[in-house]
Each structure stands twice: as C-alpha cells, then as structure tokens.
C-alpha cells in the first residue's frame, strides 16, 4: 500500500491536459496544462512544463513557463530559466537570478485571504460577463437575478452621488427662477 505523503504524481513531458485537475499529494508536471490546477502538497513544474490558467498549491517550485494566477500557501521558488507572468499570492517568495517574473505580488500573512477575495471578485465578474453574453447561468445565481428583476434599479446617466446633489438643488433653482420672474 502506497503512502500518500511520500508518493508523487508525475505527468510526463508528452501529456497535454486542459480543464481542472486536483491532486492530494505532491506533483511533478513536465507537460502542458491549461486550466485550474490544485495541488495540496508541493508542485514542481519542470523546465519543459507550460502551464496557463490558475495554480493553487501548498508549495511551488517552478522551472518552466507559466502564465497563470498563483495562490500558494507556503513558499514559491522560481528557479533559473523559469518564467512566470500573472498575479502571485504567497507567504514566502524566492526568485533567483535567471528567473523571470512579471506581474503583481501580494505576499504576507493575509495574502491567502486577499487571494480568496480576489477570486470571489473574479467569479462575480465572470458571472456578470456570462449574463451579459446571454450564456447559461449557474443555478445559485438564478434566484438572485429574479429578485433583481422584481426591483429594478433606476436608470441613471450620471453617478448616484451627483444625481442626488442635482435632485437636492433642483427645487432651490426652480424657486430662485420663479422668484426672479415675479420680481
């Protein structure tokens, strides 16, 4: 019987995966992956690896190419030759000389919390964009949309705060005009 702590999932250089992949132990990826990658242990991306999408892992050692938003609980290490483009949320970071990183860094004790909030906002944004495009909606959001349809927001061409000021001033302006006309 294999021990989950010592075993490692290996995806060879010939494999190409797109979609969502969740691994409950350490992983070594040498091929191409597109989508959401969740690894509870240490994720190693070899020199031949190419990942795009989203990476959520316990720890990350990157030597390949990645164009992804990365959320790592423990530590991120970018080895020489590694290329990472995207947002990075972690508590420890080591980018050695020879590695390339371009993007936003959010490092600290509250980085994971910030990542969760960012992900939530992204999900909401995606849901809104899918509604705009007339795509199918998730079941959880149907009820909320019905509520919104029952109580539609007033259509305004100016920001709400400006509109309120204009509405407040309107009676004063009208009364002043009437006063001038009479006088």
């Amino acid at each position: 019987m294999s021990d989950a702590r010592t075993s490692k999932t290996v995806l060879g250089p010939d494999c190409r995966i797109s979609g969502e992949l969740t691994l409950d132990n350490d992983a070594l990826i040498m091929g191409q992956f597109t989508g959401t990658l969740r690894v509870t242990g240490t994720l190693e991306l070899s020199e031949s690896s190419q990942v795009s999408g989203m990476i959520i892992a316990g720890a990350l050692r990157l030597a390949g190419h990645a164009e992804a938003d990365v959320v790592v609980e423990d530590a991120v290490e970018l080895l020489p030759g590694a290329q990472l483009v995207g947002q990075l949320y972690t508590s420890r970071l080591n980018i050695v000389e020879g590695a390339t990183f371009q993007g936003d860094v959010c490092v600290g004790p509250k980085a994971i919390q910030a990542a969760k909030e960012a992900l939530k906002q992204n999900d909401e944004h995606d849901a809104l964009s899918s509604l705009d495009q007339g795509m199918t909606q998730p079941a959880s959001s149907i009820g909320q949309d019905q509520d919104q349809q029952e109580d539609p927001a007033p259509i305004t061409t100016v920001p709400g705060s400006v509109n309120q000021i204009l509405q407040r001033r309107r009676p004063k302006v009208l009364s002043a005009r009437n006063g001038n006309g009479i006088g």
Partner: protein
Amino acid sequence: MSVRCPSCTRPLEFKDLTLRARMQGDVSTMGHVELSSPSEMIGRLVCGQFTNTGRFEGQAVVYGAIVLTGKSLTIGELTGKSLIIHHGATARAKANILPKPRLGPNSGKLRERPTRKLIPRIAAVSPKGLRPLA
C-alpha cells in the same frame, strides 16, 4: 576612484546607505541601500542592491537583488534581477524581475518631476494661414 557609466558616461556613485529614520524623496546610488527596522522611505529608489527591513513605499529600480526581510512592508513597484521575500514580510507590489532588466541609459538618473506646462513656441508661420482681423 571615479567610474563612469559605459553607455551615458555619467559619473556613477557606489555609496552604501543605511536609512534609520523616516525620509521622503529620491535616492540614487549604485551601492547597497538598507532600510533598517524603524525606518520608512517614501519615494523613488535606484540602487545596486536593496534590503528592506522597515517600510518602503514607492518605486524601486535595483540592478541586483531585492531582499524583503520579515516584518518589512513594501508597497509600490519593484524592478530588479532577483527577489527574495522572507516569511513574515508584507509586499503589495507590481514586480518586474528579469535576468537583464530592460533599463535604458537614463534609468538610473531620476527624472525631474514636471512643475509647469511649457507653452509650445511657434517656429514658423505660413502667410497662407493668416487671416485679416474682422
């Protein structure tokens, strides 16, 4: 000994600095800049190596390594050759870490902030474009 930049022939300074107080402004040197624990810097920084143990807010262009130690706070934009953020450090920054940073000959020279808009002078006027006043 004076050393000049091979590309722009500007004299280079290699002074190492340790900041122990609060300062606001720009710093430019090719040496090692260290922000010690209670110190705080707000501004632009150009240096050869940067170690932050205090609080830094602004833009840092570093020709070598950037090290952010535990309990340090960094906000802004970081450009450098390598970046190490220790456990406990807080950083919210746009990072640009490249083996050969894309830095021009004037990157090390801090540009002056524009104080007023310059009115463009008329170099030449064609007589066809002129009209008599009404």
